[in-house]
């Protein structure tokens, strides 16, 4: 038995531990333990009352057994008995047992709480310490309830000993973490803040931890801690290394306390008081200077402690993000660490630089280290360091270095660790899209990704490439050619087959002119992969084949032969079989026209947040990727418009993830939006599309079980028109905003006029010779469009006006569709946009006149380019004049261009939100409205509306989960206005309270007006 150096009180325990260690096998160990457990049990149950010492010894043995990993189901009572012993060591072991073993067993907790209460009241500092430790260790809600009120008193009482104060502070911190609701703020808080001035550095250290945690949730309450923390920090960093005696650690004065104070300061914005601010800047400079001084010791502890303070100081500099000089110095310092021989420092430098990259002041400085970082990617032997290098490359990427960074990441991917491949794939995909100037480069990059790491290319990535190719007609031919070439490889990844199948199905015709990629060759190439693929891919290929039937009538019979083969028509998989049957039937009976309509090219996808980015966010957890992205966006650094587009309204968010899943039904009529058909009686066209399901049902009624596609048929009834992009545009509407765009005349459905009242009746009701002073429905129309961008603006028996618009930052584009609902021509058709003088100075609208003749049943489109110069209150008016059947028509409606359209959502953490909220506390900055609910108070609808309004919906920010909190930035040409909003529903009263805080009074007022009408 080894010598036990101290406290050799329990020889029996040592013997037992020796025995266990001597056991040759697991079985022997278990046998020995069971013997011991039986022994202890019999002792506890025995008639002879055990003395405190034996109880302590057995409880300790149980603890040991538990820590070996065995379950312990008795002995708790004996441990609780030990708590009330007067002997310190017995009490101590009792508390230890309870700390380690007790969960919230209610029966026991009452007894334990009693013992704790006695010890807290004992005024014996050692006993009080034990009791406080026990509370902190167990930390259950019951304990919080019982003691959270008492501990602050102990903490601030004048006669409490320093060591107890320290324990009380940390004990309270622990309770606040688990049960903040039981810890009441009160008078004690200001006295706690003053502990920062305490003479005892141990007390200051513990108090700083407590204050930091409390200040995160209650910044206002602890605001005074800022100046105290600064002066304390200043005294530490300027002290000589021996001044602080035992609090100096390897020649570094109070490193723990310094780190904690710097952390506390990160709960707040830069100090407002110039003197405090100056002092803090001095401190930070001193810390940066010290990093350049020769080390006072060669020990790693010295440099670690010194650098711990340095890194925390850099975190604070980044958090403040207001001193360009400090930021650049921090960046240079980290640059030195990038090549340090200590792996730990290289790791931390990469990590810290990642956040520096998002500051506009230091982004460029970070970029200068690109070669070092790329080198790290190639040479670091530790995967966690390489991972940091990947993160940093991602963070420092912008348009100037995107090609290089993407190339290096692709390079690295070939040999990358399996654990981080998927993440790299996502990052490459995002960067390639975000900074693509040339979309052929984008397509090449993604195909390379699939080639190098096909297994790690998630669905989101290949869905996205398809979305982009479909939305950008300038790259479609190139994409078709490239996938065709890539598919030539004898072994290609299934994801490539999917992308290839989809793209050739849509755009194979663009390369069919080349005899080397004739229709038949394309088909044979795809079909050669067919049998090697999984069921979902084969299903996709079948859809490609039916699309080929439309694109290339000359190979229709070849395709029909394939569909007709037993391996398709009698396939064991119900989905494949169904597709084969349906497609074969469709290709046989449908006329060329119907085929052409059913199988027409996919319309553009609505722009929305990249699904890949969403996935990366999910993978990395909120707060990492999100923050970086959002910060970048917020600061308006050169983020390409390509990826994150303006939030689209609620109805388009509900798109399926996959561009093609399910069968033909969805391929043609699924929840994908269709081109706008604004006329309300779009029966014929509508039927051409939604009409397919009944057609199918009629043909194939023999379905025995509802198949996936049977369900999908029901989707034909999904709302189709209003949220969709116009047929003539491709890609993001805003990519070429303010460029020329001709009006498009889309034919309305033939026969639609049957549904209309006679022209006479119509004109008698609508015709108005009055000028524009009767504005239809006034503000109600505006309110309808506040939270959405698309829909029918106006309709009477003659005319329907539809809208589709998109906004990004301070720019927007609106498509206005004028549908002639009659069968008679409109003559002298002149829509005019009217802005008051005041509005003209803040809103710039450009449009072109439309064709003055609108044929019966026709639709005319007008494009309005919008630029927001500064914030505005009113809406422009759209006046339309035309002659119909000899009468003059004059209609005026307000055009729903409202300030909130120029919102960009901003994600932020709770702490940031409340910090900013506090910053906007001038009475002029706030606007509040309390109003009665006009609609049912549904949480989901409210959320959708807030998102539709344009702000980000921040979850888990408001302590009350019933409240809604949002944040965003209004972009105007002249300025950007940060906006925070909070909506508090009161279900009982059926009322809402809406509060807007923005940096501009008129903005708060207007946004509050607009949003109040929505609920």
């Amino acid at each position, binding site marked *: 038995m080894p010598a036990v150096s101290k*406290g050799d009180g329990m020889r029996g325990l040592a013997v037992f531990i020796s025995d266990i260690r001597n056991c040759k096998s697991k079985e022997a160990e278990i046998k020995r333990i069971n013997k011991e457990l039986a022994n202890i049990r019999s002792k506890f149950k025995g008639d002879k009352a055990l003395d405190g010492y034996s109880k302590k010894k057995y409880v300790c043995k149980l603890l040991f057994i538990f820590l070996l990993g065995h379950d312990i189901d008795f002995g708790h009572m004996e441990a609780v008995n030990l708590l009330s012993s007067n002997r310190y060591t017995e009490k101590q072991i009792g508390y230890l047992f309870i700390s380690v073993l007790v969960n919230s067993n209610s029966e026991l907790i009452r007894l334990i709480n009693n013992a704790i209460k006695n010890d807290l009241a004992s005024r014996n500092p050692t006993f009080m310490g034990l009791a406080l430790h026990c509370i902190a260790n167990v930390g259950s809600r019951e304990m919080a309830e019982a003691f959270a009120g008492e501990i602050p008193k102990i903490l601030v009482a004048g006669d409490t000993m320093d060591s107890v104060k320290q324990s009380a502070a940390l004990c309270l911190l622990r309770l606040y973490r688990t049960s903040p609701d039981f810890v009441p703020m009160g008078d004690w808080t200001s006295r706690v803040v003053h502990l920062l001035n305490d003479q005892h550095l141990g007390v200051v250290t513990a108090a700083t931890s407590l204050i930091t945690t409390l200040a995160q949730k209650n910044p206002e309450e602890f605001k005074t801690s800022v100046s105290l923390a600064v002066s304390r920090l200043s005294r530490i960093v300027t002290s000589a290394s021996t001044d602080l005696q035992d609090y100096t650690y390897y020649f570094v004065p109070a490193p723990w306390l310094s780190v904690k104070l710097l952390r506390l300061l990160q709960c707040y914005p830069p100090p407002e008081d110039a003197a405090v601010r100056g002092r803090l800047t001095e401190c930070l400079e001193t810390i940066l200077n010290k990093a350049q001084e020769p080390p006072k010791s060669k020990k790693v502890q010295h440099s670690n402690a010194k650098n711990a303070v340095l890194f925390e100081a850099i975190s604070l500099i980044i958090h403040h993000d207001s001193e360009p000089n400090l930021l650049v110095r921090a960046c240079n310092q980290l640059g030195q660490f990038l090549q340090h021989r200590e792996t730990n420092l290289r790791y931390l430098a990469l990590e810290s630089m990642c956040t520096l990259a998002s500051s506009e002041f230091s982004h460029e400085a970070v970029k200068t280290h690109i070669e070092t970082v790329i080198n790290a990617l190639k040479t670091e032997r530790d995967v966690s360091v390489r991972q940091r290098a990947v993160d940093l490359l991602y963070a420092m990427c912008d348009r100037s270095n995107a090609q290089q960074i993407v190339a290096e990441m692709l390079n690295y991917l070939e040999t990358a660790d399996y654990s981080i491949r998927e993440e790299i794939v996502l990052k490459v995909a995002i960067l390639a899209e975000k900074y693509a100037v040339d979309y052929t480069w984008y397509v090449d990059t993604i195909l390379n990704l699939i080639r190098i790491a096909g297994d790690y290319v998630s669905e989101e990535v290949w869905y996205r490439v398809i979305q982009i190719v479909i939305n950008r007609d300038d790259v479609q031919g190139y994409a078709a050619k490239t996938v065709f070439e890539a598919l030539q490889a004898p072994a290609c990844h299934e994801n490539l087959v999917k992308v290839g199948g989809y793209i050739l199905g849509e755009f194979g015709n663009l390369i069919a002119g080349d005899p080397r990629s004739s229709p038949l060759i394309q088909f044979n190439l795809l079909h050669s992969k067919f049998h090697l693929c999984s069921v979902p891919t084969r299903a996709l290929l079948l859809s490609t084949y039916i699309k080929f039937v439309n694109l290339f009538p000359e190979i229709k019979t070849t395709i029909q032969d394939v569909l007709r083969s037993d391996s398709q028509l009698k396939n064991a998989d119900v989905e494949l079989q169904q597709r084969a049957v349906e497609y074969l039937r469709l290709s046989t009976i449908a006329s060329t026209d119907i085929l052409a309509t059913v199988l027409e090219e996919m319309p553009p996808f609505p722009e929305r947040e990249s699904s890949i980015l969403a996935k990366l966010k999910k993978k990395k957890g909120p707060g990492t990727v999100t923050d970086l992205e959002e910060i970048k966006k917020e600061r308006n650094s050169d983020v390409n418009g390509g990826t994150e587009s303006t939030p689209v309204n609620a109805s388009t968010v509900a798109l399926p993830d996959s561009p093609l899943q399910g069968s033909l039904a969805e391929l043609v009529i699924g929840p994908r939006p269709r081109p706008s058909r604004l006329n309300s009686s779009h029966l014929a066209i509508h039927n051409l599309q939604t009409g397919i399901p009944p057609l199918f049902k009629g043909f194939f009624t023999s379905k025995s079980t509802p198949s996936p596609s049977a369900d999908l048929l029901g989707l034909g009834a999904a709302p189709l028109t209003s949220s969709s992009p116009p047929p003539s545009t491709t890609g993001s509407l805003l990519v070429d905003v303010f460029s020329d765009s001709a009006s498009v005349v889309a034919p309305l459905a033939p026969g639609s006029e049957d549904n209309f009242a006679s022209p006479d009746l119509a004109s008698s009701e609508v015709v108005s010779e009055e000028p524009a002073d009767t504005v239809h429905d006034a503000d109600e129309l505006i309110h309808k469009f506040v939270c959405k961008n698309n829909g029918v603006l106006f309709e009477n028996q003659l005319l329907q006006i539809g809208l589709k618009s998109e906004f990004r930052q301070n720019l927007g584009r609106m498509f206005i569709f004028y549908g002639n609902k009659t069968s008679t021509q409109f003559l002298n058709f002149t829509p005019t946009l009217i802005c008051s003088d005041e509005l003209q100075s803040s809103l710039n609208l450009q449009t072109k006149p439309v064709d003055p003749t609108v044929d019966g049943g026709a639709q005319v489109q007008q494009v309005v380019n919008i630029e927001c110069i500064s914030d505005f209150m009113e809406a422009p008016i759209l006046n339309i004049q035309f002659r119909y059947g000899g009468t003059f028509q004059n209609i005026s409606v307000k055009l729903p261009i409202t300030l909130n359209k120029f919102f960009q959502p901003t994600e932020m953490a709770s702490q940031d939100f409340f910090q900013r909220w506090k910053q906007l506390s001038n009475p002029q900055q706030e606007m509040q409205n309390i109003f009665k609910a006009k609609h049912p108070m549904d949480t989901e609808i409210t959320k959708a509306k807030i998102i539709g309004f344009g702000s980000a919906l921040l979850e888990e920010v408001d302590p009350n989960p019933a409240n809604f909190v949002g944040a965003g930035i209004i972009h105007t040409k002249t300025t950007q206005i940060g906006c925070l909003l909070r909506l508090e529903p009161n279900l009982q009263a059926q009322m809402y309270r809406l509060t807007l805080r923005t940096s501009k009074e008129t903005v708060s007022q207007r946004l509050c007006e607009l949003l109040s009408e929505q609920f």
Partner: protein
Amino acid sequence: MRFMLLFSRQGKLRLQKWYLASSEKEKKKMVRELMQVVLARKPKMCSFLEWRDLKVVYKRYASLYFCCAIEGQDNELITLELIHRYVELLDKYFGSVCELDIIFNFEKAYFILDEFLMGGEIQDTSKKSVLKAIEQADLLQEEDESPRSVLEEMGLA
């Protein structure tokens, strides 16, 4: 800090301290998972890694790994030194501490840790004040103990 673990190179857990309640099952799972990750790392690798949603800071002293799981915004280097300070405390107390000391006097290892850390935050960074507290407790203990015969200790009396 979320938790601290001490385990041997053979994967035997020697000490565990949890600063946020979780179920025994979850704890065991985390311990197993983390030990595997840390033990697989090579000597020259960096002392930090991302694990689940936490950061892990570890350092090996002789045959023992000291391993702390901290929150995303916590300072890695100061945590590394916190481990070192704890080792120094153990060393001072036991006099050139070894794994066996911690096995046989596990309760002492816990008491020292408790004096040093509370609720996952450092209570006092001064080596002197922590050791003073422990020594005081030992004094109380020695006063308490009455001498006993060896036989009695062995449970044979």
